[in-house]
C-alpha cells in the first residue's frame, strides 16, 4: 500500500437529482483530496452539496433519484463507483465509518446500546453468519464467544469515548442518554471497527456549545489514537478552525477553494470564502460592521450561467457569467481556488 497516495480522491464528480421540478445539478465537478491523516473540514451553506460529496465515498447516495453522471471517486486507489455491491459493503464495513448530525435518529430506540454496538462490531469484523445476529447465537458456542468478545470491545470503546461506568451503561436504551452522550456512543460505534476514514456530518450541530467543546476535544484525541483520516462536514467555521488542518469550501455544487486551514482563514482568495468569513460575527467587530453576502443561494435546478457565484460576487467580471465555471488553479503550497480572478497560477 502506498502511504503517500491520497486516501480519498474525488475527481470531477457530477451528480444529478431527478425531481418533480426538473433535473437538479447538485454536484458539478467536485474535486477533493483527502491525504492520510488529514482532518479536512468541508464547509458551505445549506444545499451546496457537502453531504452528497461525502456520501459519494461510501457510495450511499440514493440512486434513483440521484444519478452520478461523471467523475471518479477513488478510495485508497480503488474506484468506488465501479465496485460490485458485495465488495462495496465489505469496504464500508471494514474501512469507513459515518457519524451524523442527529444522534437520536441514528440509534434504534428498541434495542439496548449493547445489542446495537455488538452487532455493529461483529459486522465490521465481517461476521457473515446469520447466527451471530439472532437470538439463536446464544446457543451456539462459537457465536456466543464472538459476541462476548465483541461486548468487551464495546465496553472498552465506551470507556475511551468518556462514558462513565460503561459496564453498567451498556445495558441502557438510547433514551436514557442525553444528546451529547448519544453522540459519544455513535462515535464509539464508528471507531470500534478501526476504520481508516471517518466521515462526520455536522456531528456537533445539534449540541450545546459546552457539549460541542467536549465532543470536539474527544474527536481530536481519537484522531490521534486511531490514526484516523477525517472528513468533517460543517457549516460552522469556528469548529473548523478549532479542529481541522485542511479546509474545502463548497458553493453550489463545487469546491471553490481548498487548502491548509491557516492559509484559508488568513488569506482567503475566493470571493465566496472571503464573504463567508466576513459574515461571521467575530471578536472586535462593532455593530453595523458585519458584511453579509447579498442575495441567496441559487437553485440547483436553474443555476446561474458561468460561475454560479457571479450574481452575488463583489468582483464580478463579464467573463464570469459567460464562460463555464473556472478551473481549479493552484495558488500556493496546498491552496487551490476556482475563480476567474485567478486564471494564472500565482508566482511562487
Amino acid at each position, binding site marked *: 500500500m502506498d502511504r503517500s497516495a491520497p486516501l480519498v480522491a474525488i475527481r470531477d464528480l457530477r451528480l444529478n437529482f431527478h425531481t418533480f421540478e426538473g433535473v437538479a445539478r447538485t454536484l458539478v465537478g467536485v474535486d477533493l483530496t483527502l491525504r492520510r491523516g488529514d482532518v479536512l473540514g468541508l464547509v458551505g451553506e445549506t444545499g451546496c452539496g457537502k453531504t452528497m460529496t461525502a456520501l459519494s465515498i461510501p457510495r450511499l447516495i440514493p440512486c434513483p433519484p440521484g444519478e452520478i453522471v461523471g467523475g471518479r471517486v477513488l478510495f485508497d486507489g480503488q474506484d468506488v463507483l465501479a465496485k460490485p455491491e458485495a465488495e462495496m459493503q465489505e469496504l464500508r464495513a471494514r474501512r469507513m465509518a459515518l457519524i451524523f448530525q442527529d444522534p437520536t435518529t441514528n440509534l434504534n430506540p428498541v434495542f439496548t446500546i449493547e445489542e446495537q454496538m455488538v452487532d455493529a462490531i461483529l459486522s465490521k469484523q465481517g461476521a457473515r453468519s446469520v447466527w451471530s445476529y439472532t437470538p439463536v447465537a446464544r446457543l451456539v458456542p462459537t457465536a456466543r464467544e464472538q459476541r462476548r468478545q465483541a461486548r468487551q470491545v464495546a465496553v472498552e470503546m465506551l470507556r475511551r469515548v468518556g462514558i462513565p461506568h460503561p459496564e453498567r451503561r451498556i445495558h441502557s436504551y438510547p433514551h436514557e442518554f442525553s444528546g451529547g452522550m448519544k453522540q459519544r456512543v455513535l462515535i464509539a460505534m464508528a471507531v470500534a471497527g478501526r476504520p481508516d476514514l471517518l466521515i462526520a456530518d455536522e456531528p456537533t450541530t445539534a449540541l*450545546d*456549545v459546552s457539549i460541542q467543546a467536549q465532543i*470536539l476535544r474527544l474527536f481530536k484525541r481519537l484522531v490521534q489514537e486511531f490514526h484516523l483520516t477525517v472528513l468533517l462536514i460543517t457549516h460552522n467555521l469556528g469548529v473548523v478552525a*478549532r479542529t481541522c488542518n485542511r479546509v474545502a469550501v463548497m458553493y453550489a455544487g463545487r469546491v471553490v477553494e481548498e487548502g491548509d486551514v491557516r492559509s484559508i482563514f488568513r488569506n482567503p482568495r475566493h470571493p465566496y470564502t472571503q464573504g463567508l468569513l466576513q*459574515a461571521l*460575527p467575530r471578536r472586535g467587530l462593532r455593530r453595523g460592521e*458585519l458584511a453579509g*453576502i447579498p442575495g441567496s443561494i441559487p437553485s440547483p435546478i436553474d443555476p446561474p450561467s458561468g460561475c454560479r457565484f457571479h450574481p452575488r460576487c463583489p468582483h464580478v467580471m463579464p467573463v464570469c457569467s459567460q464562460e463555464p465555471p473556472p478551473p481549479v488553479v493552484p495558488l500556493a503550497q496546498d491552496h487551490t481556488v476556482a475563480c476567474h480572478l485567478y486564471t494564472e497560477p500565482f508566482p511562487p
Partner: protein
Amino acid sequence: MTNQEPLLEVQHLSKYFPLRGGLFQRPVGEVRAVDDVSFAVYPGEALGLVGESGSGKTTLGKTVLRLLEPTAGRIFFQGEDLCALSAREMQRRRAHMQMVFQNPYSSLNPRMKVKDIVAEPLVIHGRLGGSARYRRVRELIRLVGLDEAHLYRYPHEFSGGQRQRIGIARALALEPRMLVLDEPTSALDVSVQAQILNLLVELQEQLGLTYLFVSHDLGVIRYICDRVALMYLGRIVELAPVETIFERPLHPYTQALRSAMPEPDPDAQDEEILLEGEIGGLDPGFRGCRFAPRCPAAKIDRCQAEEPPLQEVVPGHWVACHLVESGEEE
C-alpha cells in the same frame, strides 16, 4: 443608562411547568423553567439572553409577553404591571411589545399571502382601514428590504432569510417599542444571518427599538447586544455589559461558555475550560448553587448548601456566585 426609567422591568419572575405522571396524570412535580428572575431593559438598548438548551431563555422571553402566564413575580412595562391586566387589556398592550420567532418556516401561515400576514396585526388591533392599511404594509415590506411585488406571494416562495424579513415586518406593523427576538437567526445560513443581523441593527437605530434578544450563539449576542444576561437552569447567573461578559467574565459558567465558543481563527485558541457533564434536571431537594455539580472552580461548602443570589459586584455587573462574592476570584 441607570438614571433612565426602564422600559421593561421584571421582578422575581418564575414560570413552573407541572410534571404529570401516574394513572390519572396528576401533577407529580414541577419543572422550574424560570426561577426568581429579575432584570430591567432600558429604552433603546439590546439585552441578550444567553444560555444552553433547557436554561429557560425562551420561556423567559415568552413569559415576559405573557404568552405564557407567570407562576409568580411581576412584569412592569412602561411602569405598568402587566400581570394585573385582563387578557383583553394585555392584548392591547402587546401592540407595544412584539415577538419575532425562531423558525421562519413554521411561524408564517402557509395559506396567507405576505400582504395579509403583514397586515394581520393591524387587522387584529383595528388599526388603519382600507387603503391606509395597505400603504402601511407596503411601507413595512420596503423597510425590511423586500420588494412590493413580494406582497402577493405565499411564504413557500421565499427563502429562509426572506421569510424572517417577513416575520420582522409583521412584528413592526404596530410600531412597537420593544421586540422580543427568539433566536431569529439560528435557522439561517451565515451569509443570510449577517444580512438579518444588519437589518436588525439598522431598524433599531432608525426606529429607536428596544430588543430582548434570546440566543444560544455568543457570537451573535456579542455583535448585537449592549448588555447580556446569562441563564443557567432557570436563573440568571451573570448580567453585565457585553464587553465585560466577553473580556472579564466573573461567573465560572460564563468563563467556561466563553472558552467553549469556537472562534473562526485557527490561531486564536484560548485556554479551554472544559465543563464536565451536562445541563441536567434539578433535584427538588437540592438547595445549593445550580451550577455547582458542573462547576470547575474550587467548591466551597456554601455552593452545595445555599443558592447564591444575583448581586451587583461592580456597578452594572451582576453575578450570582459565592466565590465572586467572597472575593476568592479576581
